[in-house]
Every structure is written in structure tokens, then in C-alpha cells.
């Protein structure tokens, strides 16, 4: 392997770091593959270089986009380093991208003797950029992660370049360095900050989310659901491996005088959970309902049959709307139809009993999402009693903290005895855990 990692290794190593920063997962083995591939194709043609690295490093359409972005950003930066002022950007296919880092290296050797200040004075922008690059490497700019570190790194780089205090020029130098650090922050830390933000979102209360985070949340929800579906699809298959079915084995092997060449296994059918979801879509709970429905629909693979209902003052079935339209539009439509009113739990349960109670079987799990605040209307607990008798179980997800249950007009404790599980659920993490439990029990 050592032969494979030749002269190309330094720019490649730095690019791999940039790629990781952009959120690609590049393993060591892939890094080695990339180095071997570069030995074959060289740096000669940037298009081929991009194609090749893309083949090895990016493994999904999403990753391809990230890769393209990182590649362009990185090699643009090298062009800036390599010489020439940043105004004359190179054509991407110019065919000598390898000159970038190497020429940069030479330049640095020459200019590091001079001070940044004097370079600035002579308006030697190319050498200035090169010297800055060298200083940045010494300062370890690749470790920059958060924008709060900008000033720290800017100071370090400025110190390392042994700047002379030149009247009027210091300001310009400082600006140049700050600019440079900012660009590097984008390059090296993008993935890291995104990850940080995502962690934050997972445990943020859903009702507090800002509009700008919604897109990201949707992606997160889909990812989580996919992960869950994959995990439980696997256990389901495992369950299908049974013990030897002696009778059918013998019968099957009759042709060979009963010598069991082909074995037949007893199989146990595993039912996918049937789920009915009742979502409160009145004011405060609406944000939560949105994500629950998204989650469940993303889980389609692991659930065999889900029917969803939305209620506030009364209850309607919304399965069809959700199935036919993209989730975002569907949710807006549902909200228009029934949302935002004040909730009446008793009335809604009565609607459910009239229309859909007959579809509830002993295999059905009923999930109710709501704060159980019925505005002092009749809670109709006797319907809940009948529902709990008919169904396999009832899970109640309440976005309110436990301390608030039973206060004011909350009927939570009146409903609780009929539920097999009542739990607080107001972040994405809670939601994931609740759904995971649901799938766990079903297997």
C-alpha cells in the first residue's frame, strides 16, 4: 500500500478532510482506494479527477451533491493559493489542477522568509495568499469547527506570519486574514456544525421549532423512520426461521426413500402491527401531530396497515389525504379542514365509535396523540373503555409535561386507566422511542 500513497498524498489527505467536514463518511479504506486511483489517473484532467474521486467517495445521491460542492470549493481555493490574483479564476477543465497545491508549496518556501506586512506593502497578493496558507497550516486551521473560533484562528495566523506593525496596513492585513479564516470555516466545519444543529433539533420541543428548521426536521424524521424500519424488518425475517417440520420434510423427501435431502422448516407468521392513530390537531398539539403523521407514513414498510384520524371539535379520517399527497401539502389541507378549533374529546371519540369502531380488532394498536384537554366537555370515558376492550392496546402520547396532567381541564388521569401506556412525548427523540417500543412489542 505504501507504494500507492505517493506524491499525491498531501493534497489528497487534505481534500479527504474537507470531504469529511462536508459530511461525507470517508473510511480509511476508501482513502486508500482514492490514493491508488490517483496513481492510475494522475491529476492531469480535473473532470476525470472529479469523476474518479466521486466514484470512490460518494455513495448516495445526497453524498454526490455534497461531494461536488466540497470538490469545487476545495479546488477553487487551491487555484487561489497557487498563484495569480483571485480575480482570474481558472476554468475548471483547464487541465493543470495539480499545479495548485504544488506551486503553492513552492511559493510558500520562497515567501515565508518575508513578512506578511512587507508583502502587503508590495501588493504581492499571490505570495501573500501563499504565506497565509502556510501560516494557516501551522496554526492547524483544519481543526476549526465553530464560528466562535474565528477570532482565535485569525489571531494565531496573524501571529505566525510575523507581521510588522505597519501604519495603515495592519487593518488591511487583518481583514485579509479574517476573510481567509471564514472561508476555511466553511470548508472544514460545515458538516460538524450541521451535526451539532441536528442533535439540538432532535431534543428540542416540537412546539418551539422555528419555521426555518422545518425542512431539516423533515429530513431527520425520514432518516429516523428509515432506520427503525430497517431494524425491525430484520427481526421480522429472523422470526420466520423456525424449527424442522418433520412431517412435511418426510413427505417432501418421499422420492429418496425418506432420506432428508431437502429440509422443510416450520414457520411462524409474524404480523406487522396494525395501527390506528388519532391525532389532536387543535392549536398547541398541531406541531406534534404533524411529525407523528410524517413518522408513521415513513414507516410504511414496517407497518402493514395504518389509518389516521384527525380531530379537534369532531373527528374525520385523513388516511387518504395523507397517502395521495405529499406530506407537507396533506398536513396543510388537514389543518384547513379541521384544525385549530378547540378540542372536544368526548365528541370526537363518539364520532370514532360511530364510524370506525367496527374496524378495531384485537390486533389493532390505537395511538392517541393529544393533551387530553377537552375544554370541560364530557370526556366520555365509557367509549375509551369499549375501545380498550376491543383493541390490542392503547398508547397515549401527551406533549405536556407530567406535572401538568390533571390540572385545569386536563382529563389525562381519567383516560389513563384504559391505556396500556401513557407517556410524555414532545421531542423527536421521544417520538422515536415511542414508535420503537410499538414495533418492539409487535415482533
Amino acid at each position: 500500500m505504501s507504494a500507492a500513497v505517493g506524491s499525491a498524498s498531501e493534497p489528497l489527505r487534505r481534500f479527504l478532510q474537507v470531504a469529511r467536514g462536508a459530511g461525507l463518511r470517508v473510511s480509511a479504506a476508501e482513502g486508500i482506494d482514492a490514493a491508488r486511483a490517483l496513481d492510475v489517473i494522475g491529476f492531469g484532467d480535473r473532470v476525470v479527477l472529479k469523476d474518479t474521486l466521486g466514484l470512490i467517495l460518494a455513495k448516495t445521491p445526497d453524498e454526490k451533491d455534497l461531494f461536488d460542492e466540497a470538490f469545487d470549493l476545495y479546488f477553487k481555493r487551491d487555484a487561489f493559493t497557487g498563484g495569480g490574483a483571485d480575480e482570474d479564476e481558472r476554468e475548471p477543465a483547464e487541465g493543470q489542477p495539480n499545479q495548485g497545491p504544488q506551486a503553492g508549496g513552492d511559493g510558500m518556501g520562497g515567501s515565508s522568509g518575508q513578512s506578511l506586512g512587507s508583502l502587503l506593502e508590495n501588493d504581492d497578493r499571490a505570495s501573500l495568499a501563499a504565506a497565509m496558507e502556510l501560516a494557516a497550516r501551522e496554526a492547524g486551521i483544519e481543526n476549526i469547527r465553530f464560528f466562535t473560533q474565528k477570532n482565535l484562528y485569525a489571531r494565531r495566523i496573524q501571529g505566525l506570519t510575523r507581521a510588522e506593525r505597519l501604519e495603515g496596513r495592519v487593518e488591511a492585513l487583518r481583514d485579509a486574514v479574517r476573510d481567509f479564516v471564514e472561508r476555511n470555516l466553511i470548508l472544514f466545519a460545515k458538516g460538524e456544525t450541521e451535526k451539532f444543529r441536528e442533535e439540538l433539533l432532535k431534543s428540542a420541543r416540537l412546539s418551539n421549532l422555528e419555521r426555518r428548521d422545518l425542512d431539516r426536521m423533515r429530513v431527520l424524521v425520514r432518516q429516523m423512520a428509515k432506520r427503525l424500519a430497517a431494524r425491525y424488518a430484520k427481526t421480522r425475517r429472523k422470526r420466520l426461521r423456525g424449527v424442522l417440520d418433520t412431517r412435511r420434510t418426510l413427505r417432501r423427501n418421499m422420492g429418496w426413500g425418506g432420506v432428508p435431502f431437502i429440509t422443510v422448516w416450520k414457520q411462524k407468521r409474524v404480523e406487522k402491527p396494525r395501527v390506528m392513530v388519532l391525532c389532536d390537531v387543535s392549536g398547541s398539539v398541531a406541531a406534534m401531530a404533524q411529525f407523528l403523521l410524517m413518522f408513521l407514513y415513513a414507516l410504511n414498510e414496517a407497518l402493514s396497515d395504518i389509518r389516521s384520524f384527525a380531530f379537534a371539535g369532531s373527528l374525520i379520517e385523513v388516511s387518504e389525504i395523507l397517502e395521495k399527497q405529499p406530506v407537507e401539502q396533506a398536513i396543510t389541507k388537514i389543518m384547513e379542514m379541521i384544525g385549530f378549533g378547540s378540542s372536544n374529546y368526548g365528541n370526537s371519540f363518539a364520532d370514532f365509535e360511530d364510524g370506525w369502531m367496527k374496524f378495531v380488532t384485537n390486533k389493532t394498536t390505537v395511538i392517541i396523540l393529544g393533551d387530553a384537554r377537552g375544554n370541560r366537555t364530557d370526556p366520555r370515558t365509557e367509549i375509551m373503555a369499549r375501545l380498550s376492550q376491543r383493541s390490542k392496546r392503547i398508547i397515549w402520547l401527551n406533549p405536556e409535561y407530567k406535572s401538568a396532567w390533571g390540572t385545569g381541564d386536563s382529563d389525562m388521569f381519567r383516560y389513563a386507566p384504559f391505556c396500556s401506556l401513557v407517556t410524555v412525548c414532545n421531542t423527536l427523540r421521544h417520538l422515536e422511542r415511542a414508535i420503537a417500543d410499538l414495533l418492539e412489542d409487535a415482533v
Partner: protein
Amino acid sequence: MNDLLPPGGTREAMNSIETVLRGLSGAGYIASQQIATAVYIADHLQKPILVEGPAGVGKTELAKSVATWLGLPLIRMQCYEGLDESKALYEWKYGKQLLYTQILKDKISSVIGETDGLAAALNKLHDFGDIFFSKHFLEPRPLLRALEEPGGAVLLIDEIDKSDQEFEAFLLEILSDYQVTIPEIGTVHAITPPIVLLTSNSTRDLGDALKRRCLHLHIGFPDEKLERQIIASRVPGIDERLLKQLVSFVQQLRMIDLKKAPSVSETIDWARVLVLLHTAALEVDLVRNTLNVLLKFEADIEIANKQIAGLTHKARADAGIAV
């Protein structure tokens, strides 16, 4: 393991990306630069290629063309749910084993006849080794066949996403080391490492372990120029102006929000239909009548129907025909 294999560039034909491009086009496959690069790198690094993309863009065709070009046998394995190693790798020929034991029944007394006691008889039998579990009774399935091909082969593992996760894990050994382990016989190494292509329609996400071992090639819809080249090579004798129109039409059709956008294979079919009908230029009625060649869903046809006039007009204008 890579040190054991001969250094890259095992095949004469693969000495540059341009030769790959030319070779594939000689086999009737017009490849983009990216595809050629993938094939070239795959051969030099001896890594499998995982090809993803929508149905009908020529994923399977790529493997066939590589095989034709290099003159190697194409060994194809279609994946499906429930595919297991006995169907993919090898199977014991039960029937033959049984038949042989029956035939040899009479001989058994001559082999162990003069021994006294069960232990001695068993010992004698042990001397014969595992004759019934030797290569004579082994039925090679696609994977084993690909390894045993002396001159190398092109192994196409089609629609890997349809197989189970367990099978995917089972493939790892063959993909990274070009060897398989058969418990009764031992490890079988490839005589010449085959060129391996896996295709996937992304119906499910493949495991990271599998992806890590492969080069990942995504083939999308070709651009207008490339598609024209493809059609010209697949439908020889098509009129230049008709070609321009129909490709322009299909390219526009892909911009519309459809359930299933028409693929290259559909464009080829449509081109054949139009040639068969002796079409000189696209007409709205003609397009309407043959649209079902391009679009496979009723809803899509309905959506497209409303825009046919505009699309045809634009396609004719692109080809420089007075409207």
C-alpha cells in the same frame, strides 16, 4: 490481498479512458465520460462497480457491452427476495450422490467385507475420504462459475436491492477478495478476477459494508447530445431530423413532473416505432397515438396529453423545421 493480484491494468484493452470509450461504442454502447472512467478505474483497482439509476438507462446493458467488447463470457445473476447461497454459489448434486451410492452398494461388501467389527469397517471407509463431497458432485452456480472461468468473466449481479440483507453480507467475501469458502472443500480463489457489476434500482438502501467495497456509479438520464448518439447507434438508418425532434421531445417530457419519466430504453422503442411508421416529422396526432410507448402510466399520459401540442412545436423548432 491487493498485493497478491497483479498490478493494475490487467487487460491490454484498458490502457486509457479513451480506449474504454471507443471499445464500448464498438460494442454498441455509447458511454458518457463518467461511465468510461468508472470502468477504467474498476479494472485498475480491481473493484466491483455498483451501478444505480432509474430503470431503463442502460445499467444491465453496460455489463453486456463490457463483456462483448472484451470478448469475455457474461455471467448474470438475477437477485430476488429469498435468493440464497445454494442458488447463487453452489449446490450439491443430491440426485447424483444418491445414484452413486445406490450403484456402489454392491461394491461395499468387497471394500469392508473382510473386516471384523464396526470400528474397523468405519476406519476402512474413512480411508476413502470425502469422495461424495468433492468437486464431482458440486453444481456451480453463477458466482462460483465466474470465479472458475480461466480467462476471467464479466459477472453481473442484477438488482441487488431485491435480495435480502443476509445475502448482501454473503457477497462481501467475493466482492473484496474474489474468493468464496465452501465448507466441505475449502476456499476457492478466482483464477482471473472477474469484472463485477452490481445494479440497483434503489428500492432499498444497501448496507454500508457493500457500498464501501464498490465504486459507486450513478447513471442518470443522458443529455441531449449523448442521447442522440445512443439512438443513432441503436436505431441505424434513422433520419437525422427526426432524431433531433424525438430526442428534443423526450428531453422536454422529462422536465414535466411525471410518475415515471421516460427512460433511454423507451426513447429507443419510440424511435423504432416512428421509423416503422415511416415518420418524416413529428405531428401532434402521431405523438398522441404513440405516446403509450413512452409513458407507462395512465395518469402520466393524461398529464402529457395536455402539453403535447406545445412540446411538439418546440421539438420541431429545435430541429429547424418550419412550423
